[in-house]
């Protein structure tokens, strides 16, 4: 059952189309990863869904409510954790979360305190609960921002780059808490430009580039769309003379992409083909600095669909 529908939604700022003809259906109870580079339109999509921006074309409905016609109903369902923490600097972490709960729920003081305490302790912020947020480090602020949604437990939880600025243990913990949120019945949308986050957290990944939806499938299905199943990464000392046709002569090679001096060869039987490719390039005078053979990743999928690297 779908809970959110973007139907040819668009947002134009002046002459710039931040989002254009965007259509997707998000299922109730899934974790959807919005994967795209900075400036792809991910945040604009979320702010339109959260009724902060009005779409300039198309429609967006949340649980059957049109975001323009029934914004108040939509806001009751959604909680958004922003990429850059949006905190009242003069307030402490405890007060920020407590006030957020006052605004978004009808919990009494005891329940609010219990929730805030649980989440702050889990995020290792309990000792710093009275510290004004403007005095906190970037990582601590980010955890407080995520904690707003983790205490609220909304029907639709939106996280914009939830683990930016976080160390590895904290990232793993936040991912675990987001999954727990989904297990309790929330629909979760995670915008990210980190491949591993999209791959490890999302049940479905929507690739967004230049305000448009490029592809939307499970991570495995997306990888399956890349022909060959293996990727050979070659780094040349000078890629200016390289021509992809040189390697496309091999029947096992399905596609070749180049970015500066980095060559990505999408192929199968890579172990057998590797020496032949190296010989071919060496015979043409190219000096190979490094070679890496790997399975297709989301990064390769992104490159295939958009022609550019994400990171």
């Amino acid at each position, binding site marked *: 059952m779908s809970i959110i529908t973007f139907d040819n939604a668009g947002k134009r700022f002046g002459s710039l189309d931040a989002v254009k003809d965007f259509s997707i259906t998000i299922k109730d109870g899934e974790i959807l990863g919005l994967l795209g580079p900075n400036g792809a339109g991910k945040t604009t999509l979320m702010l339109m869904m959260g009724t*902060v*921006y009005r779409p300039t074309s198309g429609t967006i409905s949340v649980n059957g409510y049109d975001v323009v016609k029934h914004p108040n109903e939509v806001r009751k369902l959604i909680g958004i954790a922003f990429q850059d923490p949006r905190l*009242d600097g003069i*307030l402490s972490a405890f007060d920020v979360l407590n006030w957020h709960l006052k605004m978004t729920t009808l919990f009494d003081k005891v329940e609010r305190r219990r929730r805030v305490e649980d989440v702050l302790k889990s995020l290792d912020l309990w000792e710093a609960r009275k510290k004004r947020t403007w005095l906190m480090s970037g990582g601590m602020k980010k955890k407080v921002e995520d904690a707003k949604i983790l205490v609220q*437990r909304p029907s639709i939880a939106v996280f914009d780059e939830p683990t930016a600025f976080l160390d590895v243990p904290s990232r793993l*913990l936040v991912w675990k808490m987001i999954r727990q949120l989904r297990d309790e019945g929330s629909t979760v949308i995670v915008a990210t430009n980190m491949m591993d986050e999209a791959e490890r957290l999302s049940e479905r990944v929507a690739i967004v580039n230049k305000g448009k939806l490029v592809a939307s499938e499970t991570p495995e299905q997306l990888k399956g769309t890349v022909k060959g199943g293996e990727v050979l990464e070659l780094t040349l000392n000078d890629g200016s003379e390289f021509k992809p046709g040189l390697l496309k002569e091999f029947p096992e090679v399905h596609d070749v992409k180049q970015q500066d001096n980095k060559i990505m060869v999408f192929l199968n039987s890579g172990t057998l083909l590797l020496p032949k490719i190296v010989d071919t390039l060496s015979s043409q005078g190219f000096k190979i600095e490094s070679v890496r053979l790997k399975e297709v990743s989301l990064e390769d999928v992104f490159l295939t669909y958009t022609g550019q690297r994400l990171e």
Partner: protein
Amino acid sequence: MSSSPTLARDLSSPPLAKESSTRLVFQMALRDVSVLFRTPWIIITRSLAFVIQLFVFAFLISGLIHVPGLNFFQYYAVGSVVATIASISFVIGYDIFEEAEEGVLDYLLTLPISRRQFIIGRALGGALRAIIYIIPMFLVVALIEGFAQPLSIISALLSLFLLAFGVTGMSITVAVSVKSANRFDVVLALLELAVSRASTALYPITFMPLYVSVFAPFSPVSFAADSARASLVGFTLDLPAIAGLIAFVVVFLGLGAAFYFRRLEGGIYS
């Protein structure tokens, strides 16, 4: 690091903030008021500055000005409180503009409160903050004026509150209509200057040059100053002034909401 919380047991369907618009407006207002209490030194230092201004500057000037039937010291005392509350009420616009620049406004706009309630809550918060801020100064002035009865105090405070409510609405209107920070500063400073200086707060209309006296009777600050004086000195209600203040509130809260809908949701700050 401690383990993740076991929240699942009773959190699957959190109660939503529905049918509680008054509560949400009140919470939004309290957020602005709480900022004041987190910086109490501002109230203390400003109150001290006010006392010095009153008992040094106003006292000296009133010795130089002799107008039959007018105690200029008393006149100035009430007016300076009114001018102060107008000035403080403009601060909410700076807060909103700063929040917009820092992105906090985006967060506030995702909360389950309607835009109209949001504007009313912010204006109410700004007005309450201004009233709390000037209460120490107001009490000093009320004693100077020798107020007739407790109702005089309530009546005068009502006028001040209406002024503060309207000015915060005006300030919010400017905050959501002007994109450039420099332009915002200039517009707000000019507005503050116009409504406070071209008014009867600090000097009687009979002493004003014609080009000021034409506008001064219509300044909301004049309405509040005249009404507060009428209440404190002899306890009479200046109904036309109060009506003017109510109109001021309605117009600028309405404008704030209208500008907000038209500009902010279109992505003015993006």
